[in-house]
């Protein structure tokens, strides 16, 4: 039996790693992975609380979060492809204009 605080600590670490990667990294795909890391840290927190309080709706919430993350990933990767076609770079510092 693992206490709830361990799950929450791991969730916070995952979320902090996501925030740090989002702020530090300059590659679009790495930033994207950081966003996924933040979402999954929140998912872990959801599941931990659902198991702690016998509330299964938390697990169903995690399903919805996963689905929305998948849709966001599909659209985001398509946007990355479009950006790379026009800019020929994936550095966000060079993608600072909405219109070429």
């Amino acid at each position, binding site marked *: 039996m693992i*206490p*709830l605080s361990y799950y929450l600590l791991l969730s916070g670490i995952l979320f902090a790693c996501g925030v740090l990667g989002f702020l530090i990294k300059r590659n679009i795909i790495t930033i994207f992975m950081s966003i996924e890391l933040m979402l999954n840290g929140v998912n872990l927190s959801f599941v*931990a609380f659902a198991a*702690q309080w016998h509330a299964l709706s938390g697990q169903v919430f995690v399903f*919805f979060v996963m689905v929305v993350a998948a*849709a966001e990933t599909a659209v985001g990767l398509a946007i990355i492809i479009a950006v790379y*076609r026009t800019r020929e770079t994936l550095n966000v510092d060079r993608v600072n204009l909405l219109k*070429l």
Partner: protein
Amino acid sequence: MQMVPIGALKGDPGDIARLLFHDFLLPFEVTSVLILIAIMGAVVLASRPEAIARPHHGTPGPQETPELVATGKDHR
């Protein structure tokens, strides 16, 4: 509050399915619309511009569709 040890949860798939397909039925259906819109958006965004402009000319030759379409000056 009564603290229940993690791992003692009676969360069999039947309960989760009852939640997902009965209590959360409307969000489930809305999610399908969301996925459909995401698929269409991804296809439109990732397709080449010529494929959208001339959809009835079949697959254009390789000389007409360069792999990287560089338009305008880039700000490097």
